[in-house]
């Protein structure tokens, strides 16, 4: 059961060869056993999960055929889930039990999915290795001395370790795609505005997007179908005709123009990554795709622009964590100012504080024009580069991350080194474009390499089509981490 895709598992459930309760128990057992090994989860609540599984079985008995009934899912601990501790990987929210469901969580509940737990993450989604979590680092199932990537490291590792066939994550600068690449699974960030942010704890509002993790592109499409859609409670949510993201999976891809930005392929990638990407590109040529060289000339500005805008928005979004109404409050303080200072000094970790300080600085009087305003202008230039590129190609391909999984502690001493892990993923967030990562090989250490596919606005169905066709011709996505058997 551990390696079944969502599609396959649904077939088993529909044929009544297995029940939702049995499925839930099976994965809960795996979770319990492997939690000390990977530390992929923050919260587990068997009672709640089994109650949901029972409800799913009732739906199946009543004849409901919705595509996710009984499917176990894990939610990144950034999504508020009613009655569940929702910590955002932080001490600040260690005891916060959400009184409501995020829109994304609601959608999955209505679809009959069964929540098996909340996954570990970098604190307040700030990180690229899942090492900033208050609840300890997550270990990469391919090598437990290495990071799974971040900030959705728990969700990526969980799917890689087959703790569940589906998980949710969020992607602000690459936090779905990069851990998907480092952990050898599939992850997708949709066009900005496609998934509602209501109930998704905010890091950088104009960049954050929710998205699915799974083992195959086809599964991603099924999950996206449930997650996507208008929500009036999010003023940045887009009202569009609902679409079936799986509708084009079977289309042949010959003739599709694949854009290869020359800026993605200059020095910066590890040789192991470069080789796997080359092999993948050869595969796409075999499928009949036409490579086209394109240019994203302002790409070198992407990381600096991101590290001005994201911290700026975060410094404001995290101001509500002040110990007044909920969450952590310092046990001793002399007065109001002291309470604020101590609560936030004690409640937040170092990376969060670092970004709040940067963000406050770039918004402050005298610096706003030079930093924040300038970064916003440059953001438009970066987005315009993609608009121009998509006139010459149908999708853009490249590496997801410059390296494979690095060792725990290797980059945590140098924040800027850590920030550079997101060099290929950040541009899509700045432009609001959909982007995904799928496994495309391994380096000489046997560590997974991820291939990034970036599409034009609302081109998710096309991207999933390409990924699916690639996965019909290859089996990188089907490989299991060492020590795991079917």
């Amino acid at each position, binding site marked *: 059961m551990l390696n079944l895709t969502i599609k396959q598992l649904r077939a088993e459930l529909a044929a009544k060869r297995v029940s939702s309760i049995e499925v839930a128990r099976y994965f809960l057992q795996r979770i319990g056993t492997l939690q000390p090994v990977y530390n992929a989860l923050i919260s587990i609540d068997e009672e709640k999960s089994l109650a949901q599984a029972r409800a799913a079985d009732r739906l199946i008995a009543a004849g409901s055929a919705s595509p996710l009934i009984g499917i176990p899912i894990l939610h990144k601990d950034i*999504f*508020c889930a009613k009655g569940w501790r*929702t910590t*955002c990987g932080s001490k600040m*929210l260690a005891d*916060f039990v*959400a*009184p*409501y469901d*995020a829109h994304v969580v609601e959608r999955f509940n209505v679809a009959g999915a069964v929540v098996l737990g909340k996954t570990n993450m970098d604190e307040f989604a700030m990180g690229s290795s899942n090492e900033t979590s208050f609840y300890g680092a997550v270990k990469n199932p391919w090598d437990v001395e290495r990071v799974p990537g971040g900030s959705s490291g728990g969700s990526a590792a969980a799917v890689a370790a087959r703790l569940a066939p589906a998980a949710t994550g969020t992607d602000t600068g690459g936090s779905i795609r990069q851990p998907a690449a480092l952990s050898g699974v599939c992850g997708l960030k949709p066009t900005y505005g496609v998934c509602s*942010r*209501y*109930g*998704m*704890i*905010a890091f*950088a*509002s*104009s960049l954050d997007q929710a998205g699915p993790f799974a083992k195959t592109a086809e599964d991603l499409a099924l999950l996206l179908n449930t997650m996507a859609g208008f929500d*009036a*409670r*999010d*003023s*940045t949510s887009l009202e569009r005709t609902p679409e079936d993201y799986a509708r084009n999976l079977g289309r042949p891809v010959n003739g599709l123009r694949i854009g290869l930005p020359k800026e993605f392929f200059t020095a910066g990638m590890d040789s192991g990554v470069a080789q796997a990407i080359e092999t993948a590109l050869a595969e796409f040529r075999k499928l009949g795709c036409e490579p086209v060289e394109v240019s994203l000339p302002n790409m070198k500005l992407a990381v600096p622009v991101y590290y001005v805008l994201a911290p*700026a*928005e975060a*410094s*404001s979004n*995290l*101001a*509500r964590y*002040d110990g*007044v*109404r*909920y969450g952590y409050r310092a046990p001793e303080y002399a007065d*109001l100012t002291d309470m*604020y200072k101590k609560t936030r000094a004690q409640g937040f970790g170092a990376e969060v504080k670092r970004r709040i300080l940067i963000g*406050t600085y770039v*918004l*402050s*009087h005298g610096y*706003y024009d030079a930093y*924040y305003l300038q970064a916003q202008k440059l953001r438009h230039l970066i987005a315009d580069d993609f608009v121009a590129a998509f006139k010459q190609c149908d999708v853009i391909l490249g590496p997801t991350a410059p390296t494979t999984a690095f060792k725990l502690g290797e980059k945590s001493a140098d924040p800027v080194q850590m920030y550079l892990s997101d060099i290929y993923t950040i541009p899509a967030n700045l432009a609001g474009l959909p982007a995904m990562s799928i496994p495309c090989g391994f380096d000489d250490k046997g560590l997974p390499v991820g291939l990034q596919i970036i599409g034009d606005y609302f081109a998710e169905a096309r991207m999933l089509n390409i990924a699916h066709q690639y996965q019909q011709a290859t089996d990188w996505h089907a490989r299991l981490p060492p020590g795991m058997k079917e």
Partner: protein
Amino acid sequence: MKWEIVIGLETHVQLSTASKIFSGAPTAFGAVPNTQASAVDIALPGVLPVLNKGAVERAIRFGLAVNATINRRSVFARKNYFYPDLPKGYQISQYELPIISGGKLNIVVGEQQKTVRLTRAHLEEDAGKSLHENFQEVTGIDLNRAGTPLLEIVSEPDMRSAVEAVAYAKALHRLVVEDIEICDGNMQEGSFRCDANVSVRPFGSDKLGTRCEIKNLNSFRFLERAIEFETQRQIDLIEDGGTVVQETRLYDPDRDETRSMRSKEDAMDYRYFPDPDLPPLVVSEEEINRVHSQMPQPLDAIRTNYESKLKITANTAALLTTSRDKAGFFDKTVSELDPLTFPGIVEATANATIGEFSGFMNSAKLEFSKSPITPREWAKLQTRVADGTISEKSRKDLLKAMFAGEGSVDELIEKRGLTQISDVATVEKIVDRIIAANPKSVEEFKVGKEKAFNALVGQVMKATQGRANPAQVNELLKKKLGG
């Protein structure tokens, strides 16, 4: 040294929407603390703001009423600071691009008319309340008010005295409360709050002096007193050789003085930036036209109509249009009057409406729309006097009885037998009787004492229980006394 006082006012007007500007929680005043604050208002993790269209409509109405520019595109911005009654740690406001720019308000100061220019008006959310009394050494935070929609209206520094500032504040209050009805105007409840920016400069100078801001004045009286104290404080300070420090001050009504709250050194840097959770506010032509077409006629236009069309005096017209409620009642009354048959009845009714009728309504603390006497009945009462059925004096008594709910006009006339004695013969008989019974008064009148005549009239009225027609009595007496 002659000093000129320069004053600008910033007024926070709570908009009368049923729910908050960015959440669906109710805005009603006086609820149990923290029972009208939703997840969005409390700033739980993950919540997001959604704009209340009713707040936008009211802002547009204001812009139209003051002839301002309604910016087709305006932007919500975050004003960041930490305080317990500000749950998000920022206030959603508008900074560089407000919804309203410019505008003007006409005010009357004594006999003078003046135009005060407006700089801008923008939408923002109110904070919660910090309650320092009633709690032992701690402060209670009530978030019911957090998220209530505000329109912040900023004037140019066009006012030159505390009296002018109060006139402006009152005119603005009347506009938003009575005229375009976007605010309930209850100053005790904090629906209408003024901050005054005050500076002084030598008369004739065109450079502005350093100003101080006096915050949160919630009565016209405090506004006036605070400005008067502050201007004198600044003048004294400068004349003693000091300089005015730009700062924020509070008015203490118990001591009748302003006190420093924050100095420029502690001035907050709010780190304004456009709120990424809200798209720019785009207002269309259709929307502006729709709001315009739904706006009631301005009270000033109603007043000038009363003067020009109904030939009511300026003073009476002004008093009739202090509220839409009163003007509306008067309009309904007028539609039941017949000025062709009874010329002067409209003016008479106008005077009586602002006179005795208003008196009764004020004592009972009632709105005209809740009057126990309908406009039709009021019109009927006026008509019965005009057509001679009853006398003026009877009218006063009847009005009292009708307010007490004792019956309709015709029922009471019937019941009390108040029908005026118009039969000349009957009245004449009584006049003869009174003349005969009061020889002294008759003598005095013949010698020239007017008072004696009035005394005789009074006697006749008394004898007829007020039912004689005074004009008729006058005429008869004069005839018989040969005057």
